[in-house]
C-alpha cells in the first residue's frame, strides 16, 4: 500500500503532505525533514528509489522525482511496483498539469485543497484508485463545476440584496462568470452560458 505522498520544494518546505496512516504532526515533520535530507544528499542521474526502512518500518521505500523546483515523493511498501509508482507519479503530475495548465510551484501552494482533491481521485486509503488521467480530470472538474454553480448563485443573491441596477448586475455577472470559466478551463462554453442563464433567471 502507499503510505504517503509528499510534495516539497527544493528548500524542504512542504507543499502537500498526505499520509494514509495517521501520523502525529511531530512525526510528520520529522519524516519530512529526514526525507528532505536523504533527497538532498542524492546525486543527479541516480535511481529514483530510496529504501527508507529506518524511517518508516520494514521494506518501506520511496520513489521521488524532481519537477522544476518541486520534489514529489511517494512512500510505499513492498506490495507496489517501484517503476509503476514512478509512473503513477507521472500520472499525478500530468493531471495537475492538465488542471492548472503548466503547473508550477505557486499553483501547488495556492491551490493545495484542489491538489488534495486530485490526489483523492488517484489514491484512496493508500490504494491506487484510478490511473486514467482524463478520468481524474473529469472527476475533479465535476466537483469544481458544482463549486462554480454555488458561487454563481451566491453572487446573485448577494447582489439582489444590495439592489443594484439589474443591467449592471448582468454585466458584472457575465464578466465574473467568464473569468471564472477561464480560470477553470471549462471546455464547453455551453455549460457556462447555461449557468449564466440560470443565475440571471434567479435574479
Amino acid at each position, binding site marked *: 500500500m502507499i503510505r504517503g505522498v509528499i510534495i516539497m520544494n527544493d528548500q524542504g518546505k512542504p507543499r502537500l503532505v498526505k499520509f494514509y496512516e495517521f501520523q502525529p504532526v511531530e512525526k510528520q515533520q520529522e519524516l519530512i525533514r529526514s526525507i528532505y535530507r536523504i533527497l538532498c544528499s542524492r*546525486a543527479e542521474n*541516480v535511481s529514483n528509489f530510496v529504501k527508507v526502512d529506518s524511517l518508516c518500518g520494514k521494506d518501506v521505500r520511496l520513489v521521488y522525482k524532481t519537477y522544476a523546483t518541486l520534489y514529489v515523493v511517494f512512500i510505499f511498501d513492498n506490495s507496489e511496483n517501484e517503476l*509503476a509508482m514512478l509512473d503513477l507519479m507521472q500520472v499525478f503530475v500530468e493531471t495537475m498539469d492538465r488542471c492548472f495548465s503548466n503547473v508550477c510551484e*505557486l499553483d501547488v501552494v495556492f491551490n493545495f485543497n484542489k491538489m488534495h482533491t486530485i490526489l483523492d481521485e488517484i489514491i484512496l486509503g493508500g490504494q491506487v484508485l484510478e490511473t*486514467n488521467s482524463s478520468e481524474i480530470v473529469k472527476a475533479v472538474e465535476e466537483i469544481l463545476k458544482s463549486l462554480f454553480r454555488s458561487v454563481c448563485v451566491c453572487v446573485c443573491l448577494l447582489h439582489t440584496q444590495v439592489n443594484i441596477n439589474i443591467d449592471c448586475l448582468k454585466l458584472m455577472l457575465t464578466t465574473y462568470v467568464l473569468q471564472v470559466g477561464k480560470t477553470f478551463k471549462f471546455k464547453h462554453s455551453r455549460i457556462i452560458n447555461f449557468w449564466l442563464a440560470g443565475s440571471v433567471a434567479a435574479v
Partner: protein
Amino acid sequence: MGSQGGFGKSKEFLDLIKSIGESRSKAEEDRIVLREIESLKARLGDPNTSKFKLKEYIIRLVYVEMLGHDASFGYIHAVKMTHDENLHLKRTGYLAVTLFLNEDHDLIILIVNTIQKDLKSDNYLVVCAALNAVCRLINEETIPAVLPRVVELLGHQKEAVRKKAVMALHRFHRRAPGSVSHLIANFRKRLCDNDPGVMGATLCPLFDLIMADVDSFKDMVVSLVNILKQVTERRLPKNYDYHQMPAPFIQIKLLKILAVLGSGDKKASEQIYTILGDIMKKSDSTTNIGNAILYECICCVSSLHPNPKLLEAAADGISKFLKRDSHNLRYLGVGALSRLIKISPEIAEQHQLAVIYCLEDPDDTLKRKTFELLYKMTNSSNVEVIVDRMIDYMISINDGHYKTEIASRCIEVAEQYAPSNQWFIQTMNKVFEHAGDLVNSKVAHSLMRLIAEGFGEDDAAADSQLRSSAVESYLHIMGDPKLPSAFIQVICWVLGEYGTADGKHSATYITGKLCDVAEAHAIDDIVKAYAVTALMKIYSFEIAAGRKVDILPECQSLIEEMLASNSTDLQQRAYELQDITGLDAHAVKNIMPKDSACEDFEIDKNLSFLDDYIRRALENGAQPYIPENGRLGMSDVTHFTSQENHESSFHALRFEAYERPKPAVALNIPPALDPSTEVPVPELSYLADIQQPIPPVPSASNIGSSELKLRLDGIQKKWGRPTYSSPVPSTSSTDIIKNQNKANQPISVGSSNAKASTVSYDSRKQVQEISPEKQKLAASLFGGASKSDGKQSSSSSKVSKPLHRPAEKSRSVTTFDTTIVKPSQPPPDLLDLGEPSFTNTAPSVDPFKQLEGLLDLTPEKPASNAFRAGTTDAPNLMSLFTDMSLNVQGDSLVNSISNMIDKNGLGGNTGAPSTPQTNKGPNLKAALEKDAFVRHMGVMPSGQDPNLFKDLLS
C-alpha cells in the same frame, strides 16, 4: 484571479503564504505562523464569521498544521463544517478532518452521523466526499454504523461511487478483517463491473484477500487470466492507455495477484504460462511503464512453478535491464535477479560483470540492492569475497540502521559459511570493531560460545588453535581505545577463559592487559565486571596449576577500588576474587575447573540431594513437612503467613497492629523443612569459608528466640516476598558460586565436552544441507570449484578475480533440466474465451436501464445470500461470472445466479472448503456486539439498519 488567485481566497491568505515563502529562517517562519494561529483562533471563535470565510480559515488551518504547528483548537470547526449543506464547505470540512484526526479521536463520534447522512445523499459528489472520509476515519467500532450503506453503494449507478465504495470496504477489511468477511462475494462481483476503473479498484482488495487465503481463490485464476488477456488485447477504452500501453496499472496488479495464486501450484501456474509468455514477448522496453510490466512478469515467473521457456525469457529480460544505463532499470534488474536466482541459479553467471558494476556504482540505492543480491547468493566458496565487500561498505557508511543490518548479515553469512577459523575470527573482529555497539548482544554471546565450543570438528587441536589465534588477535587489538563495549566484553571473556591456556602468555601479562582495559573503561560497569571475572579465572587457573600467584599492584588497586564500588555486582565479584585467591589449590580446582565453559549446568530443582539428609532428620524425630495448604487448622502462625500472602498480593498497606506469632509454635517447624531453604546445604562446606559471615541455613528457631527480631522480620516481609523465614541475603551470590562450581555436576568434564561438540557438529551439518542450491549457484557465479565442504580451504586461496572463472555450468544445467517439468501446453480453450466482454459492452449499455437494474438490486439480502451460497459450494464461481459478465446487471442477476447454482449442483460438489461460513460464526457475534455498541452510543439512526442483521442472521 489567475493561478495565484485560487478561488475564493482572500488577500490575507496570499500574504500569509508569500511571507512564509519569503521568510529566511525557521524562526521567522515560526513567528509568522504563530501570529497566524492567534488570528485564526480569534476569528474561528467569532460567531459572526461567514461560512465562506470560515472555509478559508479552515484551509489556512490545514496549511498551518502542514507546517508543523498545532492546530487542534480548530478541529471542532472543521467537524462542524462537515455538517454544512453546501458541497464545497462540506468537502473542505471532510478534507480538514481527514488530515487532522486519527480514527480514534474523540471527535470522530460527531462525524459518523454526518457521514451516514451523506452516504444517503442524492448528490453523488456528496457521497464521494463521505466515502473519502470513510476510508480514513472509520475505526473498528464504527464500521457497523456505515457498513450496510457502503455495501449498498456498490450498486450505485455512478462508477466513481462504486469505485470508492469498493475502496472503503477494502479499508474495513484492513482495519478489521472480520467485519467484511461475509462480503467477499461482493468483491468478486465487482470484478465484473462494466467500468474498468471499478474493476481495477477491486483488484486491490482482492490482492489482500488472496494474500490472506490463497486456497479459496484458486478458482479465479482462469477468469483473472481472461481479464489480463482482454486488457493486453486492448479491449479497454482507449483512454486507459498510458504511453501506448493498455491499462498498465491494471496489468501490474493482475500479475501480482496471479503470482500469488500460482506460487507453488503447478496446475494454476500452467494456466498462467501462456498469457505471461505473450506479455513478455510483447513488452516494450523503451518506456518506463513497459519495463515496469516486464519486471512484474519476471517476478511472476519467479514465483510460479518453474517453466524453462519462461525462465529463459525472464533471464533475457533481466539482461535487458542490467545492460541499460538507467539506474532505475538496473535497480529493477538486480531486484529481479535476486528473485529469480532462487529457482534458477545458473542465470547469475552471465551477469557477473553487470552485478559487480552495480556494486561499484556511486548510487547508494543500487549498491544496497546489490548487496541484498549478494547476501542471497553467498555460499562457502564466495563467502570471503562477499563478506569482505560487505565489511568495506559497512565501514564506509554512516547510517546506523543500515550498518546494523549489514553487520548482522555479515555475521550470519560468516557463521554459516566460514572457510576457516582464522578467517572467521578476523571477520568477527572487523565487524565488532566497526559496528560492535550496533549488533545484537546475542551475536557477542554466540561468538563466545563458538570460540568455546570450537567449530565442531572433533579434533581438540583445531579448537585450541582457534582459541589461541583468537587470543593472539585480541591481545593485538585491545589497545585500541575506541573499541565498542560489546567487543571488549568478548575480549575479556576470551582472555579470561583461554588467555593462559596455551602457555604462550604469562598470567602477569594477561592480567596486566585486563587491568588496562578495566581502567580504560572506568565508567562501563559491564566491561569492568567482565574484566574482574576474567582476572578471577586466570588467578584460579594459576592456583589450580600450583603456581604462585603474584597480583600486580595495579590489579590490587583495581580490586580494592571495586570492593568499595557502588555497583553491588562489581563488589560481589571483587569479594569473590579476593576470597578465591586465598584458597588452596584443591578448592580452587573445584570452583574454577579449567576449560569448562561449554558444560551444561543441571539445576536440581527438587533438591533431591537433600533426601538423605531429610530421611536422617525424620529418623531423628523431626516432624515431616506439611505443605502450606495443608496447614490450615494448625496454628496462628499459619494464619499469620497466609494473611501475609494475601496482603502482599494486594500491595495494600495494613493499618492494624501486627499480631505476635507464638514462638513455641514457630519452634515446632523443623529447620530443614523451612519452605524457603533453597540453598543446597550439606555439600557446601567450603562455601561457608568463602562466603561472608552469613549463616548458611537461616533457621526458624533463631527467629523464634527473639521477639524483637521477629517483629522486624515481619515488617521486612511486608515489602518483600511472602516467605516466612528471614531472607537469605546471599542467595544470589551462592548461586553464582554454585554455578561455577563444577563439583556438583553429575556429568564428568570430558564426556560433557564431547557431547556438546557433537551436538553442535550435527547442527552445523544441517545448515549446510539446507543450502546446496545456494552453493551451486554461487559456485557458478564466482567460479569457485570448491565443494560444499570448502570450509577447510585456507584463506590464502582467496581468489583475486574470481568472477572470470569458467563455471560449472553444464552440471547445474543438467540437474536443472531433470528437475524441471516439461513446458505446459497452452490451454486450448483460452483463446476461445475472448467472447464479448464487459469492455465492449460498456458504451452500449443504456445507463438508465442499468440504473433500473441496480435499483432492483437494492434489497441486498437475496443477492448476497445467493452469492454466499454460490461461494460455498461453487469453487469455479468466478469463471461463471466472467461468462455471464454481460448479463450480470438488472433483474436478470438473481436468475443467472440461481442458474449458476443449479449448474454447480449438476456438476457435483467438489467439496470446496466452506471458509466463508466458518468465518462467519464468530464474526456474526462480533458484528452484532459492535452494532449494539454503536447503537448504544447513539451513532446509528434506526430504520435502515435491520438490513445488517438480516444479512448476518440469514
